[in-house]
């Protein structure tokens, strides 16, 4: 009797020890010397396989093995990795999270050591420069362009001479293209699209240490968008039952949209839609577009895999490899030379490359992301609302965030 009781107690304690053992065992899979883990936010199988193939090619030369993990929620999985002391050796770092990560000391500033550090586009280098240090290497980039459904364009009796080059011709074309079932122009109601018009009007959000969000130029940009919407020639994708601009274009619900090279992705769902990309029309302040980009992040405490990861980045950002990525999943190479080759190889995407000359990055200092999220949510009140009020609120919050970012 007595020994039986003690026996079950021993079993119970053993079970606890087993549980504890399980909890402790899984953590250090990526700790090995020449084994690297890459965490990517993949657009699909094509991208995952291309990255894995490139990594394998590098690994063979360098006596290492690389595991590519496609994250289902990159931000969350990165945070979890860093908090658990088990960050991936290399990962996609998006432009909007970059400053937050850099400010909190998550990132190794390796980019200046790269032999090809000078080959990248200047504005991409600026995006990934924190506190004066070029921190991580941009892996590719996208710009926004005006995508036109060529069938609807021809059906409306428009020709190449009508391709919008300024705000007036954009409005005219949108008006001509608007019919009962189709709206002339569509893009998401968010800073990542409307900010382009604010910049085209000559505005910007941050000038050095000062926030200039409530400038007359920014207001002019928003009012232009308001006017188009009031006239009924512009509708947000949600209003015409589309998840995003590409879907609106593909389904023929919108004749023109503002999207990036990823528009190629609609070919699967809408193989019969013919479209062509052009540079965005210029506003009163000249031409402007946004550039969106990711960089290859290396964790600050990379340990013994750090140098290997840097060498892998050098391989992945090489012109040859970037052009292969472009082949596989359509991104634009981040170096000027490779991008030029890309524009020759893919003339349909040449306008996106041309946009890179004057593109700016959306505002991305540490702490700006939550302010931009708030701006996006306030923009939902833009139609029939007070554009100046929205900008004033943005001015106040963004200045507060900038002061805090500079104060530290």
């Amino acid at each position, binding site marked *: 009797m007595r020994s039986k009781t*003690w026996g079950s*107690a021993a079993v119970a304690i053993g079970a606890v020890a087993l549980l504890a053992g399980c909890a402790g065992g899984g953590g250090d899979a990526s700790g090995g010397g020449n084994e690297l883990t890459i965490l990517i936010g993949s657009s699909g199988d094509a991208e995952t396989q291309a990255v894995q193939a490139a990594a394998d090619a590098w690994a063979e030369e360098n006596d290492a093995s690389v595991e590519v993990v496609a994250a289902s929620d990159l931000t969350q999985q990165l*945070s979890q990795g*860093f908090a658990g002391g088990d960050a991936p050796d290399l990962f996609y770092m998006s432009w909007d999270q970059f400053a937050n990560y850099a400010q909190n000391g998550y990132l190794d500033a390796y980019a200046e050591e790269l032999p090809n550090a000078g080959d990248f586009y200047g504005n991409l280098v600026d995006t990934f420069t924190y506190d004066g240090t070029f921190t991580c290497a941009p892996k590719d980039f996208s710009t926004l362009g005006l995508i036109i459904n060529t069938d609807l364009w021809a059906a409306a009796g428009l020709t190449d001479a009508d391709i919008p080059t300024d705000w007036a011709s954009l409005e005219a074309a949108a008006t001509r293209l608007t019919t009962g079932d189709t709206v002339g122009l569509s893009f998401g109601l968010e800073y990542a699209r409307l900010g382009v018009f604010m910049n085209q009007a000559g505005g910007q959000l941050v000038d050095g240490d000062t926030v200039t969000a409530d400038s007359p130029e920014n207001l002019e940009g928003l009012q232009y968008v308001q006017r188009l919407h009031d006239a009924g020639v512009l509708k947000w994708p949600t209003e015409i039952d589309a998840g995003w601009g590409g879907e609106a274009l593909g389904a023929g619900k919108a004749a023109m949209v503002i999207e990036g090279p990823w528009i190629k992705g609609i070919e699967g769902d809408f193989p019969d839609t013919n479209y062509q990309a052009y540079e965005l029309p210029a506003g009163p302040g000249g031409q402007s577009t946004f550039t969106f980009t990711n960089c290859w992040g290396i964790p*600050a405490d990379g340990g013994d895999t750090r140098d290997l990861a840097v060498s892998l980045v050098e391989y992945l950002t090489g012109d040859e490899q970037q052009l292969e990525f472009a082949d596989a999943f359509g991104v634009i190479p981040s170096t000027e030379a490779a991008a030029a080759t890309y524009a020759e190889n893919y003339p349909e995407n040449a306008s996106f490359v041309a946009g890179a000359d004057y593109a700016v990055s959306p505002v991305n200092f540490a702490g700006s992301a939550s302010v931009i999220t708030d701006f996006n949510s306030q923009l939902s009140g833009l139609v029939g609302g007070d554009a100046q009020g929205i900008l004033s609120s943005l001015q106040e919050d963004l200045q507060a965030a900038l002061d805090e970012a500079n104060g530290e």
Partner: protein
Amino acid sequence: MARGIRGPEGRYGWAFVTPAMVIIGVFLVLPILLALYVSFSDWNGLGSPLGNSRPVGGENYANVLVESGLAQRDFGTAIRNNLYYVLLVVPLQTALALFLAVQVNNRLLKARGFFRTAFYFPSVTSSVAITTIFIFLFASSGAINQVLAWFGAAGPNWFADPNGIFSPVTGGLTADGPLGLTWAAWLSGPSVAMCVLIILAVFTTSGTFMLLFLAALQNVGTEIEEAASVDGAGSLRRFFSVTLPMLKPTLFTVLTLGLIGTWQVFDQIYLTGGGAPGKTTLTPAFLAYDTSFSELQWGEGAAISFILFGIIVALTLFQRWVLRDRDLGRSGERRARRAEARLRREAEGARS
């Protein structure tokens, strides 16, 4: 320690509860204490909080509660949204659950088993699946709007409509209210998008609570109901004066569980776009997640969680006080004395 004939029983007792205590301690108590510490620290999510952070006092709490700015406004918005969610979901789901339970408890109802299963079904289905289906149903050209169109009504663009349902009435109130929001924002009611989530919550959870009510109803003996009928009580009177008071313990359980569940709503928010449209479906639970994981302000995120914890505890205590047993305690005695006096008066009145 007295050692009687039972020997060292205490030792066995400890031996048996130790595994449970160790598990609860390691997986529950320690993490909560650590989170409490994080809410008072500047931990940025890099490595373990112990050794990689320093205490900053109540700064995280001050950021969301008193210092005016975006963090405070977001928190205020989240509380506002969730408050409307709780105010509508808890009474509706409790009433619906009770109604359904009474119906399927009815002996005259045919195919009771079928109805019980049907009403319980949404509760066993994953909330992710149901939310996804709701997103399709309430799309701007989805099934709901098409049905409305048969009746000539133009349905709203449900998940993209940030207007509060009372905002046409409250739009003029520009005075500042608590937590950085204007009174207009506080009183504008849940947005159209939030109303869809409210319907969803009522639909999915009332089945669970129906089960609790059903179990309680089956404990109410038929003889009590028969006695009430003999005394001349109609069916409504019988329900409100006899059945419902007997369900009070269950009612308390249902309200408490409902309150806790609704203040912690997260998955529906995550799936419908993290607060979109216009932050009108943002809730404290999602805000805590977003603040921690996206903005790397782990201290502030933890602080929001603990404020939420405080709100839930306070409201549960309040509800316990409202539903307390009125026959007990000093107020119970007072009530009993008054009832006795009334009976006496009436008896004397009848005699004279």
